[in-house]
């Protein structure tokens, strides 16, 4: 009898960290729903789904490299550059190739740019053995510059309606298309991280570089591909966000760098590397998006919103520090 209560107590304690974030998200939604019934209206729920799926991709991009004890400060620049470049390709090609092929070319170019930026980061981090913070700081600066240069600093309009429809407004079984893509990516990433050698090596890399070496894996290749994955995920975010705003924006990703790291870490990835699954970006992006949409509905002053997010960030990081101490 007493044994049973003990085990159930232990179970609860083991379950605690897993339940904390979903409960926090539900609490945030409940509080704002009480203050503003509009929080639960159909439009707003769709909005939350869309926004958090868009944000999910940058958080994922961050997660993949955070697992290896890295950083990717260039995700924002990737989003901006992909947005501008793919818009330019689409507007340039559509008159001659038609909507379908033009959009296809734009999307492919966008993904390629993401992969290329990731490859540059990966080369310098894995093969050049330079600190990822410095590498991605520099590439962030470079590719933000490229994005503003090729666009001249102005938004690129006249994107085809088919593009915004196909990548933002379309719904399948009532689910908005960004959410569906996010679900597919989440499944793929979860599979890659937990069921493949590549994924396991990334965790080992985050725990200890030497162990990975001793384990006989070609560590550099895996590290390189982690950055490429990060770049591609960021470019998907860039494409979807471009479809959302309906124009190619050279500063689309500026504010995403810090908040993407915040989302991954609040969700449970540790900056010390080696931990964090697919649940981290899911919870992290939901929490941050629900908070900011709720605060907008409540009409909280725009400059005070970052104060709240910052406080949550420090709190989440403190929680992470506490968790590692307990372990």
């Amino acid at each position: 009898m007493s044994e049973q209560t003990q085990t159930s107590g232990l179970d609860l304690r083991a379950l605690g960290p897993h339940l904390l974030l979903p409960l926090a998200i539900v609490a945030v939604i409940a509080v704002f729903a009480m203050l503003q019934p509009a929080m639960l209206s159909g439009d707003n729920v769709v909005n939350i789904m869309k926004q958090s799926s868009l944000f999910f991709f940058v958080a994922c991009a961050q997660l993949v490299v955070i697992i290896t004890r890295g950083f990717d400060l260039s995700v924002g620049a990737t989003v901006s550059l992909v947005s501008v470049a793919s818009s330019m390709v689409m507007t340039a090609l559509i008159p001659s190739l038609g909507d379908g092929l033009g959009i296809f070319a734009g999307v492919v170019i966008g993904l390629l740019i993401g992969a290329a930026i990731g490859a540059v980061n990966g080369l310098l981090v894995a093969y050049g053995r330079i600190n990822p913070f410095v590498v991605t700081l520099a590439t962030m600066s470079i590719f933000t510059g490229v994005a503003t240069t090729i666009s001249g600093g102005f938004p690129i309009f006249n994107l085809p309606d088919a593009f915004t429809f196909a990548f933002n407004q379309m719904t399948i079984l009532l689910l908005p298309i960004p959410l569906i893509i996010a679900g597919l990516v989440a499944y793929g990433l979860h599979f890659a991280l937990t069921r493949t050698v590549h994924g396991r090596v990334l965790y080992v890399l985050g725990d200890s570089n030497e162990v990975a070496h001793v384990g006989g894996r070609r560590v550099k290749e895996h590290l390189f591909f982690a950055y490429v994955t990060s770049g591609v995920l960021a470019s998907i975010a860039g494409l979807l966000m471009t479809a959302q705003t309906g124009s190619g924006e050279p500063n689309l990703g500026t504010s995403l760098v810090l908040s993407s790291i915040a989302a991954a870490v609040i969700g449970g990835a540790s900056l010390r590397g080696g931990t964090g699954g697919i649940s981290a970006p899911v919870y992290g992006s939901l929490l941050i998006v629900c908070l900011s949409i709720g605060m907008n509905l409540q009409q909280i002053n725009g400059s005070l919103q970052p104060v709240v997010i910052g406080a949550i960030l420090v709190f989440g990081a403190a929680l992470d520090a506490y968790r590692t101490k307990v372990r």
Partner: protein
Amino acid sequence: MTAIAASQPSRLGRVMKAIGILPVVLLITCVLLALYEPRFLRTSNLINVLRNASFLAIISAGQMLVIIVGGFDISVGAIVALTSVSSALSMAGLTSMGVESAPMIVFLGCLGGLIPALIVGVANGFFVSVMKISPFMVTIGTMTMAAGIAGYVTGGTPIYDMPELFTREIGRGRLMELPYVVYAAVIVLMVLWYMQTQTRLGRYFYAVGGNEKASRLSGLNTRKYIWLAYILSALLAGIVGIFLTARVGSGEATLGSNLMLESISVAVIGGVALKGGVGRIQMVALSAIFLSVLSNGMSLARIDSKYHIIIIGLVIIIAVAAESYRENRRSGHV
């Protein structure tokens, strides 16, 4: 005879190793600029470069201290903004309260600006050293909070109504042709140089950053030194905030928004290793001058400002790649 001949190149090599490649690059950049663009050598332009370098050097000195103890300070730019807003607000407030003496207003206003900076620094240090939270997360958090508060307090409009003494004297005044901020930078650099090379405190900073566990086990209060580094960094950022406010003549919540990246770039180009325990103030000062010369040269050569960030990014990569190449080769020999 042969011994001397043999020792000569090695001495040159040793000197090169001691001073590094940065002074050479700086010299070459200056000479090329002077040849290409004679306006570079005008006194007014040189003073301009020196002024920008001083702002950068002060804030990067703080960044350097934090990086040496193995951290980061992302909040420095937001501290500049917060200091600017709060010092301008306190000066405007004191003036409207009817305080007559201008030096008093300026003095209290500067204090009013430095207090929020101090608070942010203390908070950063507390969370990093006592709570053991990753410095990156802590300073991102305090950065967003400080920038948000600065934006909220001003409501997006600059704050004027500061005494003439502040905006004209401190902001634009000169002593022997040089702006005051240059002297401030020289004092900061000298003090830090003395601290790093001559005092125990300086050595303890290196020890804590080089190997925290070993320093703790050998009896150092590592928390104290980490905390102190963040406080110093915040105060130096506050000083930059006050000088910048005086220079632009108004308290602005957007001041210093790119100083965070620039200060980290300066530290990194100046050879401060992000793994901690390495970094000299002289090199950071040189690197601040180098970046100022570079951006001044690009402006003089009418290179579009959009290219500036591309070029600075490339310079960071080249500097760090050269450093890591040198390090790899050195460790390969041993």
